[in-house]
């Protein structure tokens, strides 16, 4: 009897834990939505905003690739031959910006849409304005500087098949070219840089997948 009395607290705790675990398993199965690799309505609307309603986009491949500060989360290809990339970039917060960057048939930036931003409201979120984003329209790979040594390639963005490989491949990305001038948002330098990093990654990734 003494033993049972001593065991009661442990058994009670065990029962409560078991019931909790069962409940959580049930609710998790009920609510889990796997959206990885799917073109969600939100992405569709953003694409329509850049390209109009006529072009239909599909995920043609989902290579993981990126630089130190940004990575490609999804690559999309339109039936008209245009490419768009969803890029997660570090702003003030790590992975604070999720941007959809659409490129035209020449590989220049056609439009940028902020899909998700966890930047500071009123400061970092100001990057989502036509004035700021408009600066990058027309930005191309030509504006990313040429390699310094023959061994070093311009296209430092590489694509990986697994997360482990991606970590190994996160090399440094091209420096800001002297020829391209843009203005950061006052008080939101890191968020502004995050957008520019994403833009540079998009045009480099285009070169990688389109020209090879």
């Amino acid at each position, binding site marked *: 009897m003494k033993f049972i009395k001593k065991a009661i607290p442990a058994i009670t705790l065990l029962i409560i834990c078991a019931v909790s675990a069962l*409940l959580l398993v049930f609710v998790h199965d009920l609510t889990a*939505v796997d959206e990885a690799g799917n073109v969600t309505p939100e992405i569709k609307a953003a694409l329509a905003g850049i390209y109009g309603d006529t072009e239909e986009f599909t995920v043609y491949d989902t290579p993981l690739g990126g630089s130190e500060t940004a990575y490609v989360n999804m690559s999309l290809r339109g039936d008209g031959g245009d490419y768009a990339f969803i890029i997660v970039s570090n702003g003030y917060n790590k992975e604070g910006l999720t941007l959809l960057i659409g490129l035209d048939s020449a590989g220049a930036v056609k439009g940028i849409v902020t899909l998700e931003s966890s930047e500071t409201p009123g400061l970092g979120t100001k990057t989502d304005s036509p004035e700021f984003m408009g600066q990058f329209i027309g930005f191309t790979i030509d504006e990313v500087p040429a390699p310094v040594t023959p061994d070093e390639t311009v296209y430092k963005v590489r694509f990986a098949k697994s997360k482990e490989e991606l970590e190994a491949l996160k090399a440094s990305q091209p420096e800001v070219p002297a020829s391209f001038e843009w203005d950061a948002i006052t008080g939101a330098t890191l968020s502004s840089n995050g957008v520019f990093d994403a833009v540079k990654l998009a045009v480099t990734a285009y070169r990688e997948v389109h020209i090879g």
Partner: protein
Amino acid sequence: MDKKSNIYALLKGFVVENPTLVMLLGMCPTLAVTTMASNGIGMGLATTFVLLCSNIVISALRKVIPGTVRLPCFIVVITTFVTLTDFILKAYIPALHSRLGIFLSLIAVNCIILGRAEAFASKNSLLRSALDGLGMGLGFTCALFAMGAVREILGSGQFFGIDLHLPLVFPIFVMPAGGFFTLGIIIAVVYKFTKRKPPAKVGCAACPIASDCINCKEGG
């Protein structure tokens, strides 16, 4: 008002024993997520849901749970509801889920919830515990909304994301320093209107939960 009545159990959380503004519990989410009024309400309601459910379950189990393991049991119940809230928000309100971020999971260690479980739900009937949880949660929501509204209007010139076209905004208000500043002013205003005086001597008599606290009755 009679302190033993059910109405008092519900209403005391709004002003007299407001968890944030009077008891100064749950400061971490109060300062961190209140950069926008809508975030404040979202966080407040998520906490209210957890507080209500955990108070009900803990009150229902209060005679079953042995005293020696009561704290682990409370924590398991609370974290279960926090995880449930996390799943549900992720599935149905992903925008709010991503804005609240890590603070949603941190509801688990919000001392308001464990505080109410230990001080109230483990000693009172199911109905009173539910009313207490609801009142405390809504009081917390009101406090977060007030914080979020002030910071969003002064710091971003917006209210619920709508631009107010103010001639001057002070971005310091959306930053952490502005959070402390706003909280201090709001606490001062609440003290003024409830005609409370700061305790001259720190002791059990000055504590807002003196009526519920077991240590106080024991003379501790």
